[in-house]
């Protein structure tokens, strides 16, 4: 029956959202921690997109991994989940735009998404299509959280007085 299905879905959404929240947290924590040890390499990865001066790329490259880890931790504890997911979505959209730009311009770079990327060796082909698909999947996780931000085991839940 339609009504029981709706009730079941209503009960399932917090769990689906919880999965999305923890998944997105893991994405940010991994992405950030892979870059944080070598900020100079992170700067080179940003500079490789040829979108900004080297001095600007240095700042962006240094700030970005810290932001990623902070977002990961915020999602992990579930604080202001909808807002954090929206910020994540904005960042990922910028990343996708960057990859599309590199692709359109024919740059041969590693996107630096989960690495300190930058250069590609001879014979290596950039996997722009796959990078974009992966980012779109992450964007979908953000979408779930913006749409249904109520999750289990979250600080939001505690503060709202749920349970």
């Amino acid at each position, binding site marked *: 029956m339609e009504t029981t299905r709706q009730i079941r879905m209503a009960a399932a959404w917090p769990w689906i959202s919880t999965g999305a929240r923890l998944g997105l947290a893991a994405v940010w924590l991994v992405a950030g921690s892979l870059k944080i040890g070598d900020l100079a390499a992170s700067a080179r990865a940003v500079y490789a997109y040829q979108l900004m001066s080297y001095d600007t790329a240095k700042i962006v490259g240094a700030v970005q991994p810290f*932001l990623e880890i902070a977002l990961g931790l915020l999602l992990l504890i579930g604080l202001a989940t909808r807002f954090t997911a929206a910020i994540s979505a904005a960042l990922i959209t910028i990343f996708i735009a960057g990859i599309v730009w590199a692709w359109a311009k024919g740059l041969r770079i590693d996107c630096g998404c989960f690495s300190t990327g930058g250069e590609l060796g001879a014979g290596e082909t950039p996997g722009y299509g796959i990078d974009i698909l992966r980012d779109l999947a992450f964007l979908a996780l953000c979408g779930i959280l913006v749409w249904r931000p109520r999750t289990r085991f979250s600080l939001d839940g505690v503060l709202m007085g749920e349970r």
Partner: protein
Amino acid sequence: MSKGSRDRAIKARQIVASQKAAERRRTVTLWTSVAVVLVLFVAGLIGYTVLSGQDEGKVTTPASAVDEGTAFATGAGPVTVDVYEDFMCPSCGNFEAATGPTLKQLATDGKITLRFHPVAILDRFSNGTEYSTRSAAASAAAAEEGKFIEFHDVLYANQPEENTDGLSDAEMIELAATVGLTSDTFKNAVNEGTYKAWATQVTETFSERGHTGTPTIVVDGKTLTGENNTVPSAELITQTVEKAAG
């Protein structure tokens, strides 16, 4: 109390309760969002502070370095060939094995000025020992003793694989001894990492010049690549040099 008015009272209480809950949700959403903005701002600030702290290292530029203090030259020919290499990079190892002798011959024959730029872009491949930076710094110490090429060659002949610890400082000093590089000045410079900040600066200059990978070969200011962005062959370099010489 009539049944109707009791119902109304219950309904009123429910409305008040749900209004209170909504009010609480609004307050919580507002303040948690403010907290998130603060956390992200602080995180960004930490990143910026760490970056500023890294820039403060004192750079000791080796006296023998040329080209804004970023390279070591051999030969004095009319055509300049710049080679940017990372001692950890396997592709550079292949390039050295295949093309190194040709380049050195061209320098010896007085056709080119060969300039080596030891950059460190692959520190992440040596299990945290930063072999790229250490080896580039050690090569500067060798250059100060007039043995850059010899040390450079012996490092490539004994190139460690990626994702190993690389050569330790002691191992580099041992290898240096096999090419007659035994001075205390050299050993101290390697052990103390005297030229490490310099290696970082060379790498920055490399990036600022728009190069992204190693080996990068530049002939008279123009980056030279083979077909499909491959590393240029010895023949292609020789041809390009001859053309540039006119």
